[in-house]
C-alpha cells in the first residue's frame, strides 16, 4: 500500500496533538495529582455571593425605623452530607427542622450541591456557642454572620422581610436572587424592594483548609456588591409614637396624620398592630394564632379596608350641590323634623328632635341628614359618581404601599345589575348623600380629600417616601413623580365648604366642638357611620389645622366606637395640641447625618432645601410657600 504525503502529515499531526494531551494529563494527574487531591478534599474553590447591605428606613429626621442587625445563621452544603439520617436528627433536635422539610430543601437544590442553603437565621448566641463544638461532626453545616432586620416599633407601613419563596424566586429569576435571599414581603420593604436591595457581588473563594490562599486567580476579578439605598420617610417618629399612645386602648381603628402641602404622611397608625420583628424569627403556632385573632392585627385599616364614611362624606355631597347650581350657600332646604318623608318611606335624621330648615353651612355644622336627603333628590346619581371619582374616592390614591384597596361608589348600571332592571334607586341615592348605603372609602382616601380641601383644592398623592440616602440620593419626585390634581370644586364652593367645616368645630352647636384647640384654627367634620359590623356606629373625625399657614390634616377612624363628635374628635384635639406644642421641634430641619454625606456636600443645609419635593408643583393660590415653612424654622 502506498502511503501518500497527506497521510504522513495527518499521522504526524495526530501524534503531536495526542502526545501534547497525554503529556498535559500526565503533568496534571500524576505529577500534580496529590496537590489537586488536597484542593478537592477541602472543596474550597468556589464562587460565593456577597450579599449587598440592604438599605435602612429612617424617619424625616434620619432617626431609624428599620435597621440592619447582625444575625447568626446556619448554612448547609448538601454536597458534603455524609450521613443524612444523623444530620436530620441533629437539626430536628436543635433547630426544630422537621425531617421532611430538610429532605425537601436538599432535594430542591440537588443539582447545585455546592451552594450553601440557609437553614436557620437569628440563632441565639448561646445556642451557637453550645452547638459550635458539635459542628465538627457535621462538616456540611457552618455558622456564619448574616444580616437581619430590627423594626423600632410595631407599625403597618414598614412591612417585613422574609426568605424568598419558590414563586417569588421563579418570578424574579432574572433579578439575580438566590434561594437564600431575603425579600420584602409587605409594606415599604416590598414596595421599595428594588431601591432597598442593592446588587449582590461575587467573589472567588480560593483558600485551602488551613486558610492559605491557593493563588489560582487574581482577586481583582471579584465583583463588589452595590449596597441598597436607605429610605427617608415623611414619618415623624415622635408624632407617630404620640398618636400610637393616644389611641384609645382596646379599640380597633386607624389614625392618619399628614402634612397638608406636601401630602407626606407624618403618622400612620392602625390598631391593633403587630410587631414586624415577629416575622424575622420562626413563627410559632401561638404567635400565628395571636396574629390571626378576630381583631385582625395584621389588617392595615388605613389602606386595606374600606368603610362606610357616614357624615364625613357630606362635604362632597354639599360641594356637588353647590357646583351644579342646585343650591347656593344661602339656599335653605326642607325643614328637618327628625327626618323626612320621601315617597312612602320616612328617612330619619340622626337627631330625632329635628334641626329645622338649614342652609349648607348650618347643615354641615349640625350634620343635618335631611338637608342632604332633600339635596340628593335633585341630583343625578351618575354625576354624583363622577364627582366622587374626581375627588379620588373611587380609585386608589396611589400611596407607596402594596395592595392598596380602592373605595366604592355605585353607578346606576351597578344598581340595575344588582337589584334588577326596574329597581328604584331613589332610596339608595338618598342614603349615599349622607355617606351611607353602598359607598365605601378607606381612611387614606378621606385623609387625602380633607387635605385637598385644606390645600385650597389641590389634591396631593399621599406618600411615605421623602427621599433616599446612602449610595444614591433621590427625591421622591425622582423615584416616582407625585400625582397632583385639582378637586372638581369651584373656588366659591370650596370657600363655602371650608366655612362649613369651620362651623362644625368653632360655631355653637357644631358637632365637632371637641376638636377645638388653642393656638390654631381647626376645621373638621364628624361622622358616625352605621355599618354591618355591629350595632354601634363607626366613629370618624376628619380635621385639619391652620396656624399662620396650613399645617396638618388628621383622620381618626374608630370601628364601632360610637359617635364621631364624641369619640373621635377628642383624639383629634389631642393630636393637634401635641402638634402645636411641638411645632418648632417637628418642623426643624435636621442636617444630613455625617454617614450619608458625600464629597459634594460642603454645606448640608442647602441640600435639605433642594430635596424638598413639593416646591415646583405648589400653585399660586397658596398664601405662603412651602419651602418658606421648611427652611425659615
Amino acid at each position: 500500500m502506498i502511503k501518500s504525503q497527506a497521510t504522513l502529515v495527518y499521522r504526524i499531526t495526530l501524534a503531536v496533538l495526542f502526545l501534547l494531551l497525554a503529556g498535559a494529563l500526565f503533568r496534571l494527574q500524576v505529577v500534580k495529582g496529590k496537590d489537586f487531591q488536597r484542593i478537592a478534599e477541602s472543596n474550597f474553590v468556589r464562587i460565593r455571593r456577597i450579599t449587598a447591605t440592604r438599605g435602612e428606613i429612617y424617619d424625616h429626621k434620619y432617626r431609624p425605623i428599620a435597621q440592619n442587625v447582625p444575625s447568626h445563621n446556619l448554612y448547609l452544603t448538601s454536597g458534603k452530607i455524609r450521613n443524612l439520617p444523623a444530620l436530620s436528627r441533629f437539626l430536628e433536635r436543635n433547630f426544630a427542622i422537621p425531617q421532611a422539610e430538610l429532605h425537601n430543601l436538599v432535594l430542591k437544590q440537588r443539582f447545585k450541591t455546592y451552594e450553601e442553603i440557609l437553614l436557620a437565621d437569628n440563632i441565639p448566641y448561646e445556642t451557637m456557642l453550645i452547638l459550635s463544638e458539635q459542628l465538627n461532626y457535621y462538616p456540611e453545616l457552618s455558622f456564619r454572620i448574616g444580616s437581619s432586620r430590627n423594626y423600632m416599633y410595631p407599625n403597618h407601613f414598614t412591612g417585613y422581610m422574609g426568605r424568598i419563596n419558590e414563586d417569588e424566586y421563579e418570578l424574579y429569576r432574572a433579578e439575580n436572587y438566590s434561594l437564600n435571599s431575603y425579600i420584602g414581603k409587605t409594606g415599604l420593604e416590598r414596595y421599595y424592594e428594588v431601591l432597598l436591595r442593592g446588587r449582590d457581588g461575587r467573589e472567588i473563594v480560593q483558600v485551602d483548609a488551613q486558610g492559605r490562599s491557593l493563588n489560582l486567580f487574581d482577586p481583582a476579578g471579584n465583583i463588589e456588591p452595590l449596597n441598597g439605598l436607605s429610605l427617608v420617610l415623611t414619618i415623624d417618629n415622635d408624632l407617630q409614637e404620640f398618636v400610637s399612645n393616644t389611641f384609645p386602648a382596646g379599640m380597633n381603628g386607624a389614625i392618619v396624620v399628614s402634612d397638608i402641602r406636601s401630602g407626606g404622611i407624618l403618622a400612620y397608625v392602625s390598631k391593633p398592630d403587630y410587631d414586624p420583628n415577629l416575622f424575622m424569627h420562626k413563627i410559632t403556632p401561638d404567635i400565628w394564632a395571636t396574629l390571626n385573632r378576630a381583631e385582625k392585627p395584621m389588617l392595615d385599616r388605613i389602606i386595606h379596608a374600606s368603610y362606610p364614611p357616614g357624615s364625613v362624606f357630606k362635604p362632597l355631597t354639599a360641594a356637588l350641590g353647590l357646583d351644579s347650581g342646585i343650591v347656593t350657600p344661602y339656599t335653605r332646604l326642607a325643614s328637618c323634623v327628625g327626618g323626612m318623608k320621601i315617597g312612602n318611606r320616612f328617612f330619619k335624621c340622626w337627631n330625632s328632635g329635628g334641626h329645622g330648615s338649614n342652609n349648607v353651612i348650618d347643615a354641615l355644622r349640625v350634620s343635618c341628614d335631611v338637608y342632604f336627603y332633600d339635596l340628593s333628590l335633585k341630583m343625578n346619581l351618575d354625576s354624583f359618581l363622577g364627582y366622587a371619582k374626581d375627588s379620588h374616592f373611587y380609585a386608589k390614591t396611589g400611596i407607596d404601599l402594596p395592595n392598596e384597596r380602592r373605595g366604592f361608589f355605585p353607578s346606576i348600571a351597578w344598581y340595575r345589575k344588582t337589584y334588577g332592571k326596574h329597581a328604584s334607586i331613589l332610596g339608595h341615592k338618598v342614603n349615599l348623600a349622607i355617606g351611607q348605603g353602598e359607598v365605601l372609602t378607606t381612611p387614606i382616601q378621606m385623609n387625602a380629600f380633607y387635605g385637598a380641601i385644606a390645600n385650597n383644592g389641590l389634591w396631593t398623592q399621599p406618600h411615605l417616601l421623602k427621599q433616599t440616602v446612602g449610595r444614591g440620593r433621590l427625591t421622591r419626585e425622582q423615584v416616582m413623580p407625585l400625582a397632583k390634581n385639582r378637586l372638581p370644586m369651584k373656588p366659591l364652593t370650596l370657600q363655602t365648604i371650608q366655612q362649613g367645616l369651620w362651623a362644625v368645630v368653632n360655631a355653637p352647636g357644631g358637632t365637632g366642638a371637641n376638636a377645638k384647640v388653642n393656638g390654631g384654627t381647626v376645621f373638621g367634620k364628624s361622622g358616625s357611620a352605621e355599618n354591618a359590623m355591629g350595632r354601634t356606629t363607626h366613629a370618624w373625625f376628619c380635621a385639619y389645622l391652620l396656624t399662620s399657614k396650613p399645617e396638618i390634616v388628621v383622620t381618626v377612624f374608630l370601628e364601632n366606637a360610637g359617635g364621631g363628635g364624641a369619640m373621635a374628635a377628642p383624639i383629634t384635639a389631642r393630636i393637634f395640641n401635641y402638634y402645636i406644642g411641638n411645632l418648632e421641634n417637628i418642623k426643624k430641619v435636621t442636617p444630613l447625618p455625617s454617614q450619608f454625606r458625600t464629597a459634594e456636600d460642603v454645606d448640608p443645609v442647602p441640600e435639605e432645601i433642594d430635596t424638598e419635593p413639593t416646591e415646583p408643583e405648589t400653585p399660586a393660590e397658596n398664601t405662603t410657600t412651602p419651602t418658606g415653612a421648611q427652611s425659615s424654622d
Partner: protein
Amino acid sequence: MINRKKFDFTLLALLATLIFLGCIAIFSASTTMIGDQMSIQNNWWKQIIFAFLAFGAIALLLKLPMPIFDIVVIPLFVLNIIALVLVLFTPAVNGSHRWFSLGGINLQPSESAKLLTILMVARIISKEHLNEYRQILYGFLIVLLPVSLIMIEPDFGTTLVFWASLLAMLIAAEVPLFFILLMVSPIVSVVSSVWWPAIPIWLIILICLLLKSGLSWVTITVSAIANVFIAFITPVFWMGLKDYQQNRILTFLDPTRDPLGAGYQIIQAKIAIGSGSMFGKGWLLGTQKNMNFLPEHHTDFIFSVVGEEFGFIGSIFLLAIFAAFFSRIIRNANDLKIKERKVAASGIMAYLMLQTFINIGMNIGLVPATGIPLPFISYGGSNLLINAISVGVILKYLNERGFIK
C-alpha cells in the same frame, strides 16, 4: 448493504466503543449523591436513545444508493446556509443566536454545516482541471460562507474547526505542502510575536522547510520578509487596541483572568481531573462532580468527569481509543481512490480530531475555552447524530469503493 470485503468493521467497532464510553460518563455526570441518596437527571437515557438513532442513521446511509447521495449534497448545503441565516433571527440564548428550539429539541444548524461544507468543498476542489490557486480560492470561498454566518451568531470556536478541515482537505487534494505552509505562516508569525526569541527560531524553521520544498530564493526571501514584517507589526497593532478589546482577547487566551466566568470553569475542571490522580476515584464516586461545581459537566466538561473518576489510566485509555479511531480513518482515507471521497474523508477526520483536541485541551487548561463538545462523548443528541453520520459517510465510501487490488 454491507460489503463484507470492503466494509471497515474495526472503525465501526471503535465508534461504538466511543459512544458506549460516552454513555457511561454521561450516566455518572447525571447523578448526584447526597448522603447515601442518589438522584439522577434524565439526560443519560436520552443519550442512549440518540445512540441508537445514530446507528440507525448510519444503516440508512449505507442503504442509500450512491448516485442519490451524490445528488443531495448541494441542495442540502443550500438549505443549511438558509438555516444559518434564519437562526440569526431567533431569540438569543446566553447572548448568541445558535439554536432552533423545536418542541424541546434544540437544533444547531452550525453542526450540520460542518459536514455539508466539507462534502461541498470536497466536491468542488476535486475537479480535475483546477490548478492549485483555484483549489485554494474556491475552497476558501465556500468555507467563508458558513463561517461568516457563524461568526455573526457569534460562535468563534466552531469556525476554527472549519478552517482546520479546509487545510486538511487541501492537503488531501494534493495541493503542494509549501502552499499550506505559506498560508499558515502569517498566523504562526502573529503568535510568535508574543515572545520575541520565538521570531528568529520560527523564521529559521520556515526558511528550512521552504528550502526543502525546492522553492526559488526569491519566493523564500519575499515570504521571510513578509513574515518578519507581520511579526513586528503585531505589537504595534496590539497597542492600538482599546483596553477592553485587549482584555477580551487576553481573557480568551488566559481564562484565569476571569475567575467568575470562564476561568472558574477551567479551574474546576482542572481540580476535578487532577484530583483523579493515577487511578481515579471510581465510577459514580467523583466528589467534584458530585458537588456540581461545573454547571454543564455533562456537555462541554464531560472529560472532567472521566478524568476524575477513571484517573490517568482511564483518560489515557480514552485517548488511545480516540487515537486508534483517527488513525483508522487516516488509513481509510489513504485507501479511497476517488479524489472527492478521499478529500471528504480527510476533512471529516480533521474536524473530528480538532474538536477532540480542543475539548480535552480545554478541560485540562491547555487551550482556551471555546464551547466545543467532545465528539461521541459529550451529551447532546444532534451533535452525536451529525458526528456519527460523518463517520457513516466514510464507512459508505469504503463500502462503495472499487475492487481492492
